[in-house]
């Protein structure tokens, strides 16, 4: 079978992947670097990020304040050494992007402008109007074009990681255009495939967000970390799930219930003011706002629609000028997809699945416990996001940890011999699997879409904003049934050329694995923390669960969950307070002793 070989292979061409590729190329221009992606890089989901990217840049701000907001926002599940590295390097990375041409919004004097964001006590969010991810991705993509050592495999779909001798040595991938199945070997592989929102029925995530990298790593033996922490963004448009950025609230938007009342004041998030107050009310963290919606809905104070209950986001008082200059994409999306004009009308919104805090477990260099495998961006869990990510931390995370993973992979690759040719036998087995299970299979009664819809419904019902043991256990059972039925799927399409149905079948396989890890981690964590709220265990339990879940797939297909203590450097766990002056970071508090969960 065909094979090609590189020093470093990036799987995924979004913000993290492209940043990693450039970082590796700058370590050593002689490195042979390849970016493989199932879509052209500029289609990657980074493109959809709207609001901004946090990095301390103004004189009234400090790295410690960014770290504290991030750690308290994450309900003390963040690894503090990772957060400290992150806040330190974020401004440099954002500045580097400026040097590469990113059209950041500016102050009148020409300096970078920053805006407020949810859960952040200071204004530190850099933005390019409300298309920040779009501009970052295109800047990165266009910049990679000048690096000759970076080659691309556009529209290739990775089906398996090749592991030999305890080390990842490449991938098997399908070239969509031709249907060719090929081994692509490398001394180091970096996963940058993004999140898994499509495991749920209602999500802001693009069709391509199927947890591919999480499932690939898990099947290769690497642990997934903190998969129970799925973030619901409080403001998605009903039906489409299109995101209305948090920047709409940073600029001063109000959240209103059916009576036009700013209901967040009833949920321990502060008192309403006419202008936005940082870390308060509409600028509270996403987990708390989404949970407040559910409570408000239970009280019958939301507005029913055919696509679920909604509340209103009111931007009318901001006026046409602010909306057109600071939130032009919000207006465009409302006009085009909801047929309303936010200058004159209320925007209907409801919580929508948005971001996976968990992912492939990595250290602060981006290395996973599996030699030769690195990960960065949403696919990874370092962890800087803990139990709840703050808005505008994910874009700089892609840059900081993308660059770190690129450098670490370059250093690792320098020490390795070229992959052994015997790895190709494994690749050949994978090719046979794809042929017999899908392309040449006869019979099969299940439709992909049917299993996918049942999976999405199951995950939402069992592991939604609020969870409990009974629904989680039922969900786990249903997912096992769907795994069985998955073996009986039938493809209408058996051709080689651009077979998107085969791709959808493989993505569904990945999603079923990821769904299982979400439900298992949620079942085992018998406490409530950040985005993981158990109605049967309503309190946070630091004695037992100041620890990351590690989900391992056993060779027999079953799984197990273990725990890894959170790394605490300077900020002892405290209460999350919003709407009041935040408690001062305790600069010199000693690290607290950690007890492992049994």
């Amino acid at each position, binding site marked *: 079978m065909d094979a090609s070989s590189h020093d470093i292979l990036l799987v995924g061409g979004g913000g993290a992947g492209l940043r990693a590729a450039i970082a590796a190329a700058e370590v050593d221009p002689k490195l042979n670097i390849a970016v493989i992606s199932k879509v052209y890089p500029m*289609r990657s989901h980074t493109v959809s990020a709207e609001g901004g990217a946090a990095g301390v840049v103004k004189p009234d701000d400090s790295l410690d304040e960014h770290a504290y907001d991030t750690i308290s926002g994450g309900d003390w599940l963040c690894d503090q050494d990772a957060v400290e590295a992150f806040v330190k390097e974020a401004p440099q990375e954002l500045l580097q992007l400026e040097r590469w041409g990113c059209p950041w919004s500016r102050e009148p004097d020409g300096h970078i402008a920053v805006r407020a964001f949810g859960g952040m006590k200071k204004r530190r969010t850099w933005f390019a109007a409300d298309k920040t991810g779009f501009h970052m991705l295109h800047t990165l993509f266009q910049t990679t074009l000048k690096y000759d050592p970076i080659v691309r495999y556009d529209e290739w779909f990775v089906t398996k990681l090749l592991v030999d001798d305890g080390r990842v040595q490449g991938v098997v991938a399908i070239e969509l255009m031709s249907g060719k199945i090929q081994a692509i070997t490398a001394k180091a592989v970096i996963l940058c495939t993004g999140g898994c929102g499509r495991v749920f029925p209602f999500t802001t995530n693009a069709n391509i967000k199927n947890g591919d990298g999480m499932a690939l790593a898990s099947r290769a033996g690497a642990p997934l970390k903190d998969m129970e922490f799925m973030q619901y963004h409080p403001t998605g448009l009903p039906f489409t799930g299109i995101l209305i950025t948090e920047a709409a609230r940073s600029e001063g938007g109000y959240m209103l219930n059916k009576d036009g009342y700013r209901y967040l004041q009833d949920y321990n998030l502060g008192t309403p003011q006419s202008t936005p107050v940082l870390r308060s009310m509409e600028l509270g963290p996403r987990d708390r706002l989404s949970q407040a919606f559910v409570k408000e809905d239970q009280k019958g104070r939301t507005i029913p629609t055919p696509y679920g209950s909604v509340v209103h986001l009111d931007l009318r008082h901001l006026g046409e000028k602010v909306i057109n200059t600071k939130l032009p994409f919000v207006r465009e999306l409302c006009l085009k997809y909801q047929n309303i004009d936010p200058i004159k009308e209320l925007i209907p919104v409801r919580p929508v699945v948005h971001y996976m805090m968990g992912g492939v477990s990595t250290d602060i260099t981006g290395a996973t416990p599996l030699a030769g495998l690195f990960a960065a961006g949403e696919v990874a869990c370092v962890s800087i996001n803990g139990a709840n990510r703050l808005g505008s931390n994910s874009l700089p995370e892609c840059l900081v940890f993308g660059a770190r993973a690129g450098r670490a992979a370059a250093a690792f690759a320098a020490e390795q011999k070229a992959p052994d040719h015997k790895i190709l036998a494994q690749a050949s087995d994978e090719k046979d699997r794809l042929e017999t299970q899908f392309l040449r299979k006869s019979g099969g009664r299940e439709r992909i879409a049917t299993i996918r819809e049942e999976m999405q419904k199951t995950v939402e019902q069992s592991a939604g904003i609020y969870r409990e043991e009974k629904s989680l256990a039922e969900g786990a059972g249903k997912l096992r049934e769907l795994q069985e039925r998955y073996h009986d799927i039938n493809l209408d399409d058996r051709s080689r*050329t651009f077979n998107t149905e085969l791709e959808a079948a493989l993505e569904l396989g990945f999603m079923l694995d990821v769904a299982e890890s979400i439900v298992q981690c949620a079942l085992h964590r018998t406490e409530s923390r950040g985005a993981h709220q158990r109605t049967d265990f309503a309190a946070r339990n630091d004695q037992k669960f100041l620890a990351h879940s590690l989900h391992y797939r056993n060779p027999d297909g079953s799984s197990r969950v273990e725990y890894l203590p959170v790394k605490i450097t300077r900020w002892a766990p405290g209460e999350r307070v919003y709407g009041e002056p935040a408690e001062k970071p305790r600069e010199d508090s000693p690290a607290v002793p950690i007890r492992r969960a049994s």
Partner: protein
Amino acid sequence: MADKITLEIPRYSPERDTEPRFEAFEVPVHKEWVVLDALNYIKDKVDGSLTYRWSCRMGICGSCGMMVNGEPKLSCATFLSSYAHNGNKVRVEPLRYFPVVRDLVTELSDFLHKLKAVKPWLIRQQEPPLSEGEFLQTPEQLENYKQFSMCINCTLCYAACPVVGLDPVFVGPAAIALAQRYNKDSRDQGAEERIAVLAHPEGIWGCTFVGECTRVCPKHVDPAGAIQEYKLKAALHWLKSFVTPMGRTTKDVRHEAGND
């Protein structure tokens, strides 16, 4: 609004067909549905082999461009109900002027090649260290190039451009707009290098100012305006070249543009 509509789609697979043949699919019409929702309905419920690209469903990733009743459109941003009156049929075809890979999927490698050819990155003579901070750029300077930075590479403008249809080596609207995005950026110093790529017959001179590119752009970029600005600049550059020879041959330029 009718409650059902028929989609006519040319089906083509190189393994099976010598030329496309139309198939018709009846789908329900919901008022929230866009053309892409109808395609997903067909793929999920009727024929899993229907082949097309899509991803974000919010008009920003640029994947799902198609001809809808002869007009280049993003299928995720085109409501199905707009077509639910006219005989209840809508024809959905691959973007015009591109080679077809299969069904609604077009071949994009030539477009990617053209994007790269215009050197779409910030070119600087000197790069000060990061410790010196950001390049200052006022909101007015940002505004000067901003609309050209909004291109999502959806290629609708190529499908709308009669010159692309006649002359496949024409660099085309989106790539020229992207060159202009950097030329007009106050931080950039690479306009001279880019003009060497574009100031030849297949660069900008092919454009006949039909303006269709600007009309169909879903992001309100004005490639026609970019080309016009560029032509003026290139003409001045050409005059100047009699005084200072460029030191490059047409062959070099064609090579850089990837057109040899």
